[in-house]
Structures are given as C-alpha cells and as structure tokens.
C-alpha cells in the first residue's frame, strides 16, 4: 500500500424520508469519495478538506429534502499508519 489511507472518513446516517437519504448520496457523489458504509449509511473517505466539503454538501441536500436528524461519525487514521 504505497499511498496513505484516507486522511479522514465520515460516516453518516439520516433520519427522514428516503428522498433525504437519496439526496445526500447524490450530493456527495461528485466528490468521488462517497461509498456505502452499511445499511442506510454512507461514508465519505479522502483528504480532510474534500471530505468535510462533501459532507457539508450531503448534509445541506439531506436537510433540504426533509431530513430531521443526522448522525455523523468522523474517523482519522491511528498512529500506526
């Protein structure tokens, strides 16, 4: 693995209509960093600034589409990397 792992990974789940989840995924997609992270969960992994920007887009889109709660977890690599 001769390049570093993702500098930051954001996981998020959304409470609200399906349209809100879809809107969040659609908004994060163009970043190139979005993946499925579990049932109903999306993850965004990559450079810190890009992850935070894509996360912001996803949150905005989800709220605009009727989301009423979002759980977000951020992970940074541990010292072993």
């Amino acid at each position: 693995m001769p390049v570093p792992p993702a500098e930051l990974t954001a996981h998020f789940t959304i409470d609200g209509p399906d349209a809100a989840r879809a809107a969040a995924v659609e908004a994060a997609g163009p970043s190139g960093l979005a993946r499925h992270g579990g049932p109903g969960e999306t993850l965004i992994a990559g450079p810190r600034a890009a992850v935070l920007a894509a996360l912001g887009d996803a949150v905005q889109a989800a709220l605009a589409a009727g989301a009423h709660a979002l759980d977000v977890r951020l992970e940074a690599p541990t010292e072993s990397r």
Partner: protein
Amino acid sequence: MTTVVGTRSGVGESVRRPDGIPKVKGEFAYASDLWADRMLWGSTLRSPHPRAKIRSIEIAAALATPGVHAVLTHEDVPGRKTYGLEIPDQPVLAWEDVRYQGEAVAIVAADHPETARAAARRIEVDWEVLEPLTDPERALDPAVAPLHPSGNLLRHVHIEHGDPAAEGEVVVTGEYEVGMQDQAFLGPESGLAVPSEDGGVDLYIATQWLHVDRDQLAASLDLEPERVRLVLGGVGGAFGGREDLSMQVHACLLALHTGRPVKMMYGREESFFGHIHRHPARMRYEHHATRDGRLVAVRARVLLDGGAYASSSTAVCSNAASFAVGPYDVPNVRVDASVVYTDNPPCGAMRGFGAVQTCFAHEAQMDKLAVALEMDPVELRRRNALSTGSILPTGAPVRCPAPVAELLERVRDMPLPGPRADGGDLPGGVAGVTRGEGVVRGVGYAVGFKNIGYSEGFDDYSTARVRVSLAADGEPFAEVHSAAAEVGQGLVTVQAQIARSELGVERVVVLPADTQVGSAGSSSASRQTMMTGGAVYTACRAVMELLRERGDAPLEELLRDGPVEATREYHHRETFPLDANGQGDAHVTFAFAAHRAIVDVDVELGLVKVVEIATAQDVGKAVNPQAVEGQIEGGIAQGLGLALMEEIVVVDGQVRNASFTDYLIPTVLDMPPVRLDVLELGDPDAPYGLRGVGEPPTISSTPAIVSALRAATGQALTRVPVRPDDLAGL
C-alpha cells in the same frame, strides 16, 4: 570504547534460514496448524452471484444444526461494517448488495469444520440476481449505473511531461492486455481468534501487516486497538495477497460472540475468492523516436480492472502510471491511467504492483520499435537507458544508482546455452510430442524498474526493539523484536544478521512478530530489508551508544550492570503526492533488473520450453546472498507463470478455475536454469546501501520470455499469458 569484532553470520553472509529445513520436511507450523482447547471452527457463506440484491437472509435452519454455536450476519458487526486498506468500501458481511462472486454474506461457528460448512449451506438467502458489470471499458460509461455512490472510476492518474504532443520520425503503436494473475501462495488464509479476559481478542494470523489488520479489526469490532492483539502465525507466502483482510474480522466476531477460540482456514477453492488478485490491464501505447533510435515521446493509456472493491487499487494505478514508460529517458510523455470498479473479483497488491502490467507493454513496444528502426533491441534500450540524475516522467530526478545500461550489457554478454537438447527437454517434455522438428529457438530481452517502499507522501517507517543482556552462561545475548511479517522472504534471518554485525554478538534471537511493538509497515513493496533492516540497524546503534556510556570495556563486562534496550523507528526520506499533471517527487528509491530469455517453441503445437533465464539485478546490498538468489529465482518463476500459464479465468463475473488443477503455476519442470548476476550499488540514503530485491525479478522476466516467443514464432503476442493457440497462430 566497546569493540565490535567481525562476527560470524553477519551482513553479507549466506546464513541458513531457520524456517528452511522445517518447511522442506513438512514440520513448519503454519497458521493453518494452529490449535486451541475448546476451539470452534468458522465457515463463510459466500455469494454465488457476481451481482445481486439480498432480499432476506434466514439463519434459523443453520442455527438449529447440532454442533453450531453461532450464525452471524451484518447485523452482528458491532462497529464499522466495512473495511479496506485505502477506502473502507468492502462490507465485512454484505447487507443489501453483493458485487462479486464470493462476497461474504454470513459466518458460522461450529464444533467441527464440516458441521460449520454444512450449516453455512443451510443459510437461506433470497437473491434478486442482477446482470453484472464486467467490462472495465463499459464501467467508464457515465450512462452505466454505478456500483458505488461516487461512480465506477476509482482513480485516474494523468502524467504530462515535456511536450506531450511531440512527434518522432518513427512511430510504433500497440495494444496490450494482461490477464488476472493470482498470488498463488501455498498456505491458504488461516488464523485463530481467542477471546481474552479484558473483553478483547488475540488473533494469531498469517498476514503481511499486523498493525493495519489490527486497526481495521478494532474499527469493525468496536474495540480499542489495545484490546485487539495480533501475533504473526506461520505464513505460507503472501506476494501482496495478504495485505487485505480475509477471515480476520469473521474469526474475531465469532470468537467474541461464542466466548471460545475460533479457527478459520480456507481451502484452496475458497482462497481464490478470499483474497484480491493482480489487476487485469488493457493498454494502448504510442512510441515516437528519431531514426537513430532516441525516444522522443511516449503516449500511453492504461485501464486497470479493480473489481468490486478498492483494496490498493488507487496506489496500483499510480504505480502503473509512474512506471508506464519504463527505465528510459523520455523527454515527452503523456500517460493516462485509470482503475475502475466492476463486478469482477477485487484486485489489489501483487508482486510488482502496477509495474508488471506496464512493463509488459513498454517492453513489447521497445521490441517493435527496434524492428521498425532495424536496430538491435538491446542497443535501442541501452541508448535510451535511465541513469542517475535522469528526470522521470513525474519530474523527479533519479537519485539512486540506476545501472540500466550496465544491466542490459551484462545479460547480453552472458554465455548462451548450448544447442537444443533432446527428449524431455524439448517443448512438450516427457510427452514426447516432437523429436525436434518444428522447434524454433528464440531469444528476448527486457528491463524494468519499480519503486521501493511507500510513495506519494506516505510516512513510511518501521519499528524495532533491540535488547542485549547476558545469558545464563555469561555470554552476551541479543533479542530483536519487530512487527515485521516474515512471509517466506527471509526477513528473520536479515534482522538477526544486522544485529550480529552491529552488536558483535553472535547469539541473536528474533522474537515473534506481534502488535506489542510499533508498526513495521507491510511486508510488501520490496521494503522490509530496507525499512525493518534500517530499524534494527538504528536500534542496535542506539544500544551501542548506551553501552558506550557505561565505559570502555568488553561487552560482557558492560552488561554486568544489566541489560540495555532501545526501540527505534526508521523512516525513509520524505516523498510527495503527484499533482494534477502527475508531477512530484513521489518515490524514495528504485530497483532495476534486466532479463534475457531463451525459449524453444514447437511452432506447430504451440508448446514452449523456457531453456534459460539470464538476469542482472542491482540489489543495493545483498545481506544474505543465498536469500537474494532465492528471491530472484522465485520472482522469475512468478514472471514465467504470467508469461505462459497463470490466469484466473473470469466469465460474466464467474471464476472458472478456482483450483490448482485448473489455475496452472510453474513447477520445477517448467523452471529453467537461471544465470544470475547481482550488483550491489548501494543507496546512499539507506544503511548498508540497502534497497530491495523481491519485485524486480517478476517485472521484466515476463516481457523477456514473451519477447523470446515473438522471436521464435513471429507472432505479435500482445496478451499474457500467451496461449498455445497464440503461438501456433490459430
């Protein structure tokens, strides 16, 4: 001052490996031999479909099977439900979608392995089978539904150097393909997870990188990393195939769920589905040169099939781009390398890591160019050879020794083997299909290079702890502790040799690798001799400093005041990411090798006998010359496999040859004599000048063999592995 005298079995000596004789005698304890009292056996239910939706999973029948202790699905993963070396995009256990045949869906623990397998078969999955996306070109089509939210393009690396539109007087173009090669390590994935009293888990595992396994385990098990302890089990080969997790999380989940030790051990067929493979590649090249054979420009497009999940694909793509033009001075370069998601088996690290694919293509192009120029192919390569100070297509200078021209001259000047033998040495072997009629000899050359260690800004380091004390008999005694994985390459011996040389102590013990000491990085990228060797060297030097503070006396006297211990990290020089035009000082150092292949081909039957491989390789410093020879010969065998026989056949996303009956690897009957010349041009930035050995033999041996096949048959041979019908022109 403490005196270090010449020590037996130190650096530069062919020290016998401690694992050698036990392996030959079948007495070596591999991870598959692990055992614990009250141990349960784990088994995995895998998707039979390359692409499908999971409507439901019914586990009741499996759970009711006598002897079964647990049946777990994605709902039982307490922490992160995905894992991955670079991007955590691969499900520990699939929840809604499966994206390749063999994806893990559920796991079972039972008191007997056959019970566990039978119970796994009783898990009922309601599938909605979908059409798989298996063509990497089609995966790039924006109209195709993506496998992942951000689309199917995993990474694109664009390199632009000089004037990418420059034209030469002579132009050759070509399209090339490399098939999906397997690491084909002999010891299938295996490990033993033991729940501990603190609620954590101890995992004894055959792996390449203990700490990154640990970090991924801790995330998915929702445990602090300190409560996940890993110890290296006996590893039966790796070649990149153990960099990703396989059964690690599954075994730990089952152990924590049942409160009992759980062993998991894949069979050969399951192993093909349990690890990543070498990326298949499609490449298009355009070489421009002057009439006197100077390269003017190279333009290349490389498309890698990453399969269903990311693994190391982004780094492999970067390497394929970095080494796309080969070890040549090329003033004008444009490379576009992409890696995409498909529903094919996931691909990742394998010996040579991106450089193998592009070396096959650029060396075929150099042969083609030599024909167009009516020039000797070695002379063409020599005339354009990289050297120290050359500027790479990434804009970075080559700082290390780069004896490309010398390596080529050495293999060219080695004596040629005698005339063709009869009988069993002819193509077809003991089958006796020819007495020599229709058999043509061919000679081919190739040269390649690759980065050593991690690149693109990765803070690459290894850690070693060295302790020196007096044994009961009063003799000095050293212990070396690191987390570096001995995967069969001879690293344990290297660590001991460096400690002996630096400490002047003959009695050295290398402790088992585990996570109780800092990370050593992975046993990959040909890096461990340089990185963990560097860490042991640095820790030994620190120990000697501490001893010197005790005075000037023989070691035995200094140690009467007690043991001395030091833990040190070794970091290589800083590297930097590539920018949008693929420019940057991304790699720390390089290793080079050249090969000459002699083949006999039965041109009517398409059968091949590789008569001899001659090679010259610069290794920096041969710490253990015999081990260096072993690495080079083993790497050539793997390169021969890719040239002639090794390919995972995937049709519509389904693997058709998941066995060593149908996936052929070279045996002793296929392996020719190797004529070997090792150069030791040390890297000025590394202890002893250490660089790496493991990968270069695999990189340019394949194109050398195919070059020889072309010379014998006159066929274009643009794809590896080469099949008999390709050689016979059918």
